[in-house]
């Protein structure tokens, strides 16, 4: 039997899900732990500074993080990242619907196997 390492390097997408919403030129993106085991890591590692780095190339001027322990969720409010907003943007995705996936794909983390949902495709790494 092959011994698999107990830790993996995976994108945030492996341990969290989220959703993007827009209001004016502000995007908000939730980051929600699939499993309680992953919540402390998400809370500690997915910081305002790291999220700002992800969105700076799109023009983001500030990022505010709100924490919801009750929902095992973070809510990021990202200013000036929607090219003026849904009715002014030149982007193909004027609402920024895809931005939750930009975030979930851009942040890489070292995680324990038990932080992933059962059956996750990332477990076969």
């Amino acid at each position, binding site marked *: 039997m092959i011994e698999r390492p107990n830790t993996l390097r995976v994108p945030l*997408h492996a341990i969290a*899900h989220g959703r993007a919403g827009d209001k004016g*030129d502000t995007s*908000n993106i939730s980051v929600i732990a699939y499993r309680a085991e992953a919540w402390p890591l998400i809370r500690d590692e997915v910081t305002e500074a790291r999220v700002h780095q992800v969105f700076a190339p799109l023009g983001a001027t500030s990022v505010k993080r709100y924490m919801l322990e*009750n929902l095992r969720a973070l809510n990021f409010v990202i200013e000036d990242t929607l090219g003026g907003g849904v*009715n*002014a943007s030149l982007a193909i995705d004027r609402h920024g619907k895809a931005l939750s996936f930009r975030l979930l794909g851009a942040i890489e983390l070292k995680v324990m196997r038990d932080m992933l949902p059962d059956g996750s495709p990332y477990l076969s790494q």
Partner: protein
Amino acid sequence: MTNALHIGCGAGFAGDRYDAAVPVVRHLSEQDDPRYLIYECLGERTLALAQLDRSRDPERGYSPFLGRYLELVLKDTLAHGVRIVSNLGAANPVAGARRVQALARELGLTPPRVAVVLGDDLRETIQDDTLRTYPRLDGAALLDRQITAANVYLGAVPVRDALATGADVVLVGRTTDSALVLGPLMHEFGWDEDQLDHMAAGTICGHLLECGAQMTGAYFADPGFKDVPDLAHVGFPVAEAAPDGSFTVSKPSGTGGVVSRATVTEQVLYEMHDPAAYLVPEAACDITQMTLTETGPDRVTVEGVRGHARPEMLKATICVENGWMAEAELSYSGPNALARAELAGRIVETRLREQGLNAPIAIDLIGGGAGLDRGNLAETLGRGLPADGDYRVRLAMIRDDKAQANVLIEELQALYCSGPAGGGGFRSSLTAQLATGSILIPRAEVEPNIRVEVVSP
């Protein structure tokens, strides 16, 4: 006193599925009274387009989709006493009410009693120049352009008052989307405006319902990670609310989709900023102590929503003319497609600049991260994409002058014969733009103008 209210959502935006409400109405018909059906169909631009409709024809200006939605349900909602509350009234709720009554006659039904809420259209009472003096929330630079619509977000109180007339159908223009739900709750449970926790709980119930299937597995499915059964037939959300402010969300039996802690968590945070202060006219809603409990298959009970003092100012959306947006696309495929697609974009950019068109241009490589990078080509090229493959270059530009905007389209199209090898599949669009911004307006400027009218059959 009523001890439970059943409410469902039939549409979450103006382009939503027309028949989604049919299973919702069936579900509601099987519940005890009182029962309500909401349709949320009024985006920021949608209302401005409706204003233009009304300016051309005073009998129009309600949602052009009103008939498409209601013709499928009106017979059953009237037969079962399911009251409809919707912003399908758009820029002209009174004309919308007459259209509902005409539709009923066409369907062989007794025309319903319809009440409308008026007073959201700020241009009825305030000059455009005065609107420009109020504090601006966003879109500040735009607000000096030609205004096409200015509507303030009314709250749930006028919706409640419209229901008190005994109307079968209530049509509003611009209210908060959540007011479509909070209004019925205030009406049925006798909640008062100073019960802030209740105002907040009803708002969060409305917030969860008003985007339709976004709470029941849509805008959620991610195969292999978040699997959703039968999304093709996703059930739209329904809620059972209690007088204490708690409520349980679910979906009609026999429909696809899923309702879980995960779907509700994603949707409750959708378009929310500070979770301790989600602002609506009635309260600052606080979900930081809220609990979500899975109380059955596809059932989540929501408790512990708190309300804090309501905001002093109301939010209004201003819609302005914003020129023309040109978009054009061309595809490159096979060996070295990435370089050919990039070259195509650079050629057009060069030629636009040479013609003095210095407006911002988006250059996307579809297939390389256009959705992630939002026109920032350097970001896409920095991703280390495969040289071979299938890339579609997309360009976009906004200009006040239609002909100037169209130059972008002409320049990309010219690459059929004058560009890199193998470019094909040119498509383009040139669309009039209505941009939006927001202002804050004192209640005293708004509240005296709010009124409810009953449109008799």
